[in-house]
């Protein structure tokens, strides 16, 4: 009889749990335990991007009170400076989507609402050094990477192409590929909601000329060879591409939260995967923001392994040399978390 009682209680509890979606079969799953990097001086509301550059850690917050970007000494996490001030003045930011370093250790910040990419020099506290206003024909550029020190690769909402090369003046010089939707995408106004639903994050590997693109609102990984204009692979599990309904000119996502950050390493592509359905999110069955999975693929898009984390992260920096992943846990007051993988020597 007591067994029956416990069975009933288990049934009640299981009803309130939600499902994680992922249809890719990885050969192995490796669990990782994170170690918090205490950061007492700065409160981050919703850290979304993190970059490690030598001994400085840069964190970008998408819901800041004052500044979008912060620099810390790493690994001590001693606060160094804040920049990209939030505000409506000409040199202030309405938004920050991503941060990137060029080969000269200069930091670039994308402000999608002001339609520009802004450069900060290393250690600069006075303000931005250079603005690159983006081509007026681009609609909401929500991510970017550098092809070289003055050329960028970006996605946008026009839907007419998947990626665009932008020169140092912000002018679109070349369009690449199309959204990999069945039946293709036609270049009229109706493509904008499709492009919204296929909003993606990207990473570019300058050494090989490869760009990896991961959808935020579905589970699709795209790998393109930009030098030869060749599609390397589209990893799109059946039924997991972005699902949406169109209301007016807008797309309303109805499927899942997919990927939120992507990185191309020496041998592998890493992507943070959430897998939360919007039904669960709306019903507050998933209150944590972020993904517990890091999917690892080879450079051809074949699944290699997945890491199962002990917390949910939104953005990461993959330090392959030291075999450490620095993640951002927005659900914690101490959001910087370091995950050692394969070795523990670096802790």
């Amino acid at each position: 009889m007591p067994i029956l009682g416990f069975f009933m209680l288990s049934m009640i509890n299981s009803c309130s749990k939600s499902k994680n979606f992922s249809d890719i079969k990885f050969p192995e799953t490796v669990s990782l335990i994170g170690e918090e990097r205490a950061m007492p001086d700065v409160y981050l509301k919703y850290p979304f991007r993190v970059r490690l550059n030598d001994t400085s850690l840069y964190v970008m917050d998408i819901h800041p009170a004052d500044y979008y970007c912060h620099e810390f000494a790493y690994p001590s996490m001693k606060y160094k400076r804040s920049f990209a001030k939030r505000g409506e003045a000409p040199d202030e930011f309405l938004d920050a989507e991503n941060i990137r370093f060029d080969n000269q250790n200069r930091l670039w910040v994308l402000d999608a609402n002001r339609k520009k990419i802004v450069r900060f020099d290393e250690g600069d506290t006075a303000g931005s050094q250079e603005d690159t206003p983006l081509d007026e024909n681009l609609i909401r550029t929500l991510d970017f990477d550098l092809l070289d020190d003055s050329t960028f690769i970006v996605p946008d909402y026009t839907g007419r192409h998947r990626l665009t090369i932008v020169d140092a003046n912000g002018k679109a010089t070349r369009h690449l590929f199309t959204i990999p939707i069945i039946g293709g995408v036609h270049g009229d106004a109706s493509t904008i909601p499709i492009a919204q639903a296929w909003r993606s994050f990207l990473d570019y590997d300058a050494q090989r000329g490869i760009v990896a693109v991961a959808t935020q609102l579905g589970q699709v990984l795209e790998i393109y060879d930009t030098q030869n204009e060749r599609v390397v692979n589209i990893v799109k599990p059946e039924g997991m591409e972005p699902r949406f309904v169109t209301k007016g000119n807008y797309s309303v996502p109805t499927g899942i939260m997919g990927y939120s950050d992507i990185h191309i390493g020496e041998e592998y592509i890493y992507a943070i995967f959430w897998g939360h359905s919007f039904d669960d999110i709306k019903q507050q069955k998933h209150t944590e923001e972020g993904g517990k999975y890091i999917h690892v693929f080879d450079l051809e898009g074949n699944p290699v392994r997945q890491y199962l984390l002990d917390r949910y992260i939104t953005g990461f920096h993959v330090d392959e040399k030291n075999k450490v992943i620095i993640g951002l846990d927005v659900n914690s007051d101490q959001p910087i978390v370091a995950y050692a993988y394969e070795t523990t020597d670096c802790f």
Partner: protein
Amino acid sequence: MKNCLSLIAIVLATVIGLNVNMKIDDWKTATMAVTLDNIEALASGEDSDTKCFLLGSIDCPHSSVKVMYIQ
């Protein structure tokens, strides 16, 4: 007698569990309604059927504020 006591304990635990679960759900719903109203006011467009809710990382069509979901 021992079996009878076990049965009563199980029934009591089940009832208490259900009650607590329902109260938590009520609290969540009430809290969510208040929060949603605030964010909705912040992020809904006057000329559209779409509305954006809570702070998150999704691009909202009407606002520079990124949100958790759109309806």
